[in-house]
C-alpha cells in the first residue's frame, strides 16, 4: 500500500499530464496541507484507487497504449502497487500494454452475432485495404446497425461513426402501442441535452413525488408493482432496495449498470443516449429510497455518445440542485460519479463491476455476502440497469396498480427488446409482457427470408426454433420453455445463415471473456470452444464429444463463481438440441 517499489521506466510529459488531469479532478488521497500535517489514510487511498481506471483510459488515449513508464507514473501517483496496476491494465479489451507502433486511431469492428452475419469480415477487409488500423472486437452494442464500428481515438475523441447519422433511429423502432409506453415515451420527443426539455416532458415529477411519499413508501410501491431486474437475473427490485435501506446508516451506494455487454444487447444505450436525464433522475430516486449518498454510473467504454450525454445531464442536474448536498430540498445529499468501462463483458456481473470501479481487476467476488450488505467498497449497494431504474419512475408517479395493469400477473409491466439480424426494422421495441414472440417480430417488420432460429437473451441465452413463435414473452413462460428473456435480446437468423460459425463465435466469446479466476469456467469455456472448432472442421461430432459439452455445462453451472460460467453453454447446447449445428 505504501511501500511501493516502482520500476525504472519513466513517463513522458504528455502521459504525466494526462494522469495528473485525472487526479486533479479528484480531491486527492494524500494531501500535504503543511510541512507538518498530511492527510491520507485508507479511506482516501481507496477513494484514489478508483481513479486507476480513468487514469488508464487517459494514458491509452494519450499514447495509444499504456507504456511501462506511464503505468509506473499512474501507480505511483495513485499509491497502487505497480504489479496490480499492470494486472488491471491487461484485464481490459480497450487497453493495450504493447507498443502499437503507430499513432493512429483504431477502428473496432464487431465480429459477434448480427454483425458477423452482416459481413463483419468483409468490412474489416475493406477498412484494412483503406489503411485503417482495425481491431476485431466483441459485441459493440450496436446490433441494430450491423456491422458495428467504434473508433478508439488517438488525438481525437472516441467515436461511433453511426452516431452522426442515426440519432433518431429509435423514433421508428420504438413500438408506440396502446397509449404512452412508460420507458420509451420520451425517446425522440425531448432534447437529450436539455434539462428544461426533460422537465417540460414531466421529468423530475417522479423524484418530487418520491420525496413527498418518503423512502419507505417508494420501496413499498416498487415491491407491490412486482418490478424485477431487467439485466437477465430478474431479481425483485423492491427486495434489493429494502435490503440496502435496512442496513444501518453509513456510506451506501447505488450503481447504475450501464455496462450492457451481453452480445446482442443495446437497449440501455438507446435509453442513455436519448433519455439521459431519466437515468439520472431514477438513480437519484434510488439513492433517496435506499439512503445512499453516492451514485455511480458504470458505462461501457464503447458508448461515447451516451457517456457525453450522461455527463452533461449530471452537470445540469448539479447546477439545478437536483444533485448535491440537498436534493430538491429533501435534505438528502446525493451525487453521481461516472466511470467508463474498458471492454470487459465480465464487468456486467455486479461484483466484478464493483472491483472494476474500485480499481481492481474486474473479477467477480464470491457471494454471499451479497451487494445489499457488501457491495461497492464493501458497503451496502443497490445495483440496477437503466431499464429497471426507468420503470421505477412510472411506478412512483402512477402507483403500483397502474403498473400492474400491463403485462401478466407474474411478469407485470413492459419489456424492452433488442431486435437484430433478419428483421425488416432492427431496433429497440417496448412491448407488454405476454406478447408472443411472433408478434414482436411482426412489430419489427417481420422476418426477412425464412426463419431458421432466434437467439433469445443473448450469448448467455439460448436458441429457439420457428415453432416458438407463439411463445408468450414472460419470465415464467420463457423459463418453462427452457429459454430466457435475459437482457431482452431477440437476434433473428434466416435459413441462409450457416449457424456453425455463429455458435463457434459465441463459444469463442465466452472463452475470451472468462476472467480465468475459477477453474470450471476457465477450462470449460476453452474446451467448449475447441469442440466447436472441431465441429466446424469435421462437420459432425462423436457422441462422447457431445457428452463432454453437457458434462462441462453441468460443471460450469454447478461450480463457477458467477453467471458467465453458469450460462456459457446455453447457446451451444440449445443449438445442438435444435439441430442448428452438428447435423453433418
Amino acid at each position, binding site marked *: 500500500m*505504501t511501500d511501493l517499489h516502482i520500476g525504472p521506466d519513466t513517463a513522458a510529459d504528455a502521459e504525466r499530464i494526462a494522469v495528473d488531469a485525472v487526479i486533479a479532478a479528484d480531491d486527492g488521497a494524500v494531501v500535504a496541507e*503543511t*510541512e*507538518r*500535517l498530511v*492527510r491520507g489514510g485508507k479511506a482516501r487511498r481507496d477513494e484514489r484507487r478508483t481513479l486507476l481506471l480513468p487514469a488508464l483510459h487517459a494514458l491509452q488515449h494519450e499514447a495509444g497504449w499504456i507504456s511501462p513508464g506511464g503505468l509506473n507514473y499512474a501507480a505511483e501517483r495513485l499509491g497502487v502497487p505497480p504489479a496490480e496496476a499492470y494486472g488491471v491494465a491487461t484485464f481490459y479489451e480497450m487497453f493495450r500494454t504493447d507498443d502499437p507502433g503507430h499513432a493512429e486511431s483504431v477502428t473496432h469492428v464487431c465480429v459477434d452475432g448480427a454483425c458477423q452475419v452482416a459481413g463483419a469480415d468483409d468490412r474489416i477487409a475493406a477498412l484494412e485495404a483503406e489503411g485503417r488500423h482495425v481491431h476485431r472486437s466483441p459485441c459493440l452494442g450496436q446490433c441494430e446497425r450491423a456491422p458495428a464500428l467504434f473508433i478508439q481515438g488517438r488525438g481525437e475523441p472516441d467515436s461511433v461513426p453511426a452516431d452522426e447519422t442515426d440519432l433518431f433511429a429509435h423514433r421508428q423502432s420504438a413500438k408506440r402501442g396502446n397509449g404512452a409506453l412508460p420507458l420509451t415515451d420520451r425517446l425522440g420527443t425531448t432534447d437529450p441535452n436539455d434539462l428544461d426539455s426533460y422537465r417540460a416532458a414531466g421529468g423530475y415529477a417522479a423524484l418530487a413525488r418520491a420525496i413527498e411519499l418518503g423512502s419507505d413508501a417508494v420501496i413499498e410501491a416498487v415491491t407491490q408493482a412486482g418490478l424485477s431486474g431487467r439485466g437477465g437475473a430478474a431479481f425483485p427490485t423492491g427486495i434489493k432496495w429494502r435490503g440496502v435501506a435496512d442496513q444501518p446508516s453509513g456510506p451506501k451506494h447505488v450503481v447504475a449498470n450501464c455496462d450492457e455487454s451481453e452480445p446482442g444487447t443495446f437497449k440501455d444505450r438507446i435509453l442513455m443516449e436519448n433519455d439521459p436525464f431519466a437515468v439520472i433522475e431514477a438513480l437519484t430516486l434510488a439513492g433517496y429510497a435506499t439512503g445512499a449518498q453516492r451514485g455511480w454510473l458504470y458505462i461501457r467504454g464503447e458508448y461515447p455518445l451516451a457517456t457525453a450525454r450522461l455527463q452533461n445531464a449530471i452537470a445540469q442536474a448539479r447546477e439545478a440542485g437536483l444533485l448535491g448536498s440537498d436534493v430538491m430540498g429533501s435534505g438528502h445529499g446525493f451525487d453521481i460519479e461516472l466511470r467508463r468501462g474498458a471492454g470487459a463483458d465480465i464487468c456486467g456481473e455486479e461484483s466484478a463491476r464493483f472491483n472494476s470501479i474500485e480499481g481492481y481487476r474486474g473479477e467477480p467476488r464470491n457471494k454471499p455476502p451479497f451487494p445489499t450488505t457488501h457491495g461497492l467498497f464493501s458497503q451496502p449497494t443497490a445495483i440496477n440497469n437503466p431499464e429497471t431504474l426507468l420503470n421505477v419512475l412510472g411506478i412512483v408517479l402512477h402507483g403500483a396498480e397502474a403498473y400492474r395493469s400491463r403485462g401478466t400477473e407474474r411478469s407485470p409491466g413492459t419489456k424492452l427488446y433488442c431486435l437484430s439480424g433478419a428483421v425488416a426494422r432492427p431496433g429497440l421495441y417496448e412491448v407488454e409482457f405476454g406478447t408472443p414472440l411472433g408478434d414482436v417480430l411482426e412489430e419489427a417488420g417481420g422476418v426477412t427470408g425464412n426463419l431458421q432460429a432466434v437467439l433469445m437473451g443473448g450469448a448467455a441465452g439460448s436458441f429457439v426454433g420457428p415453432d416458438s413463435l407463439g411463445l408468450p414473452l414472460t419470465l415464467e413462460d420463457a423459463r418453462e420453455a427452457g429459454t430466457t428473456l435475459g437482457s431482452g435480446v431477440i437476434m433473428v437468423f434466416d435459413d441462409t445463415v450457416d449457424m456453425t460459425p455463429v455458435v463457434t463465435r459465441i463459444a469463442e466469446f465466452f472463452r475470451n471473456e472468462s476472467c480465468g479466476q475459477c477453474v470450471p469456467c476457465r477450462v470449460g469455456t476453452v474446451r467448449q470452444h475447441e469442440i466447436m472448432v472441431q465441429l466446424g472442421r469435421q462437420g459432425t461430432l462423436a457422441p462422447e464429444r457431445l457428452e463432454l459439452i453437457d458434462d462441462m455445462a453441468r460443471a460450469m453451472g454447478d461450480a463457477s463463481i458467477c453467471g458467465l460460467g453458469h450460462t456459457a453453454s446455453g447457446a451451444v447446447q440449445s443449438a445442438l438440441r435444435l439441430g442448428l449445428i452438428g447435423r453433418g
Partner: protein
Amino acid sequence: MFGAGGGTSSYTEIEETDVIVLWGSNAREAHPIFFHHLMKGIDKGAQMFCVDPRRTSSAKFADVWLGIEVGSDIALANGVAREIIHAGLTNDEFIAHSTTGYDEFKASVEPYTLDVVAEITGVPAEAIRELAHAYATAEKAQILWTLGITEHHNAVDNVLSLCNLSLLTGHIGRWGSGLVPLRGQNNVQGGGDMGALPNKFPGFQDVVDPEARAKFEAVYGTALNPTPGLHLTLMFEAMERGDLRAVYVIGENPADSEADIHHARKMLEGLDILIVQDIFLTRTAEMADVVFPASIAWAESEGTVTSSERRVQRVRPAVIPPGQARHDTDILIDLADAMGSELGPSKPADMWEELRSLSPLHKGMTWERLESEGGLQWPCPDEDHPGSPFLHGWLWEDDLGGRGPAPFSVVSHEGPKEQLTEEFPWRLTTGRALDSYNTGVQSGGYESPIRYGFALDVNPDDAAQLDVADGERVRVSSPRGSVEMAIRIQPDIPRGLTFTTFHFPELVDSNVLTSDAWDRRSGTAEFKAASIRIDKLARPAVRPESAPTSGVPAGD
C-alpha cells in the same frame, strides 16, 4: 500505569477499535507483527492519527499525520485535553467516579489553547482539534506509543500526559479502548514481569515492601537486599563515581547502545571486572574479562516469553546450541554453584512452579495451561481464571475493585533538554528501520534488499541550504563528539530535523552524537533529541549510499 507495568489491551482489540492514535512510534518498522493487527483495524474502518516528528512509513497509513516538533508531546497532549474539556466531550461520570485530581488538571491545561499548542508543536490548530474530537467522541479508542514518548528526559511525564487523555474520556479498562506501550522485543514484558527491574521482585512486587520481601526470602531461603538497585543510567553514574566496579551484562550491548557512547565505553573500560553473557561476541563482549556464550532463547531454549499484551507463552528448543553455548539459566546456576550457593530448581517447569507460588499475577497459569491454552494473559490469579485480555476493568466497577481512583497528573511542556544553538542548529532524532535490530547484533549478519539507516536523513530544502548532495559524506557533530556519515535526502522529514538509526555502530557510531540527558524516574536517556551541526568535508567524496553487503564485522 495506574499501578501495573504492562500495556492495557490485547492485540486483537486494535482490530476492533474505532480510533487509533499512534504516538511517537514507527510501529510499521519497529513492531511489524503488531502493525499487522493495526492494519486489520484500519481495514475494518478505524480512523488513524499518527503523531510523530517524521512522516514515517507508519504515518503514511494514517488518516491524519501530525508532525510535531521533537519533544513537544506534552504540549500536544495538554492541548488535546483542553480542547476535549472546552468542547464538553469529557466523560464526566467516569471522571467523577474513577479519577482524582481533575480540577487541578483542568486548571493546569488551561494555558494550552489550540493556538499556543499550534505554535509549540508546529501543527495547525485545526488538526489538533480534529484529533481531540475524534478521540473523545469515539466509542472505542486506543493510544499506542513507543520510544518516541519514552526516550526523552521527561519520559514519565510524556506517558502521564497520554494517560490523562484516557482518564478524561474513559478510554481505559474497556474492550477496544486502552493505553498500549509497544515493546521492542518478544520478551521485554517478560523480563520486567520476572523481576529484572532494580526495584521489583517478580510480579511487580516492591523490593522495599517488607511483607513481599519476607515471602521471597522464605522461598529463596536467603536474606534479600531491601534497597532497590540501580537502573542502567544510574549504573553508569555509579561507575563514574567509582562505586560500581564489577558488571555482569546479560544479553545487552551497552558499548554500542548507550547514548553519548564515548563516555559509556570509557566507563566500561574502567571496571575491575566485566562479565558478558550473550549469543554473539558483541562490542561489549570484546571488552569483557569473561564471556559466557549463551543459547538463543528462541529455538534453543526451554521456558516462557511474555508479549506486549502480557501473554505468557511457552518456548521450546528445536535445535541444540552450537559449540559451548549454554542455557542462560544453566550458566547462572553453575556460576552460583561455583560460588557456593544453590539457586533452587533447575528445570524450567519447576522454576515456573516456584514463580507461580510467589507472583499472584501468574498464580493461575499452570505449566499445563500455558501449553494447552496457547498462552495466558496476566493477571491470572487462580487456575479457573481465563486470563485478562485487558487491564483496569476495575475503573468501571462500582467499588473500583476496592482500589483508590486513578489520579490525573499535572505535567508541563518543557521541550528537549538540549536546545538548538547557533553552533549546533539542527535537531537530530534517532529510530529504527524495518530490517535491522537495535545495534545490529542480531540483524547485521544478514543481507537485506531494503536496508537503510546508516545515512543522515535531511529535508531537500535543508540539503540545498547546506549545499550537500544525496549520498555526500559529511561530518556530523554534537556537543559530545562527531562522526562522518552520508546524507540521504528525504522529502518526508520536516525542515530543521534530521534522522538516523543506530543499527550500524561499526559504520556510523551515531550514539556518539546522542544526548546524555535522561529521565530520573525511568532511567531512560533522551535518544530522541540531540542538537547537531553538519559540515561539508574538506574534499567531498560523493558516493551513493549503498547497503553493507554482508554483515557488520563479526565483532558486532
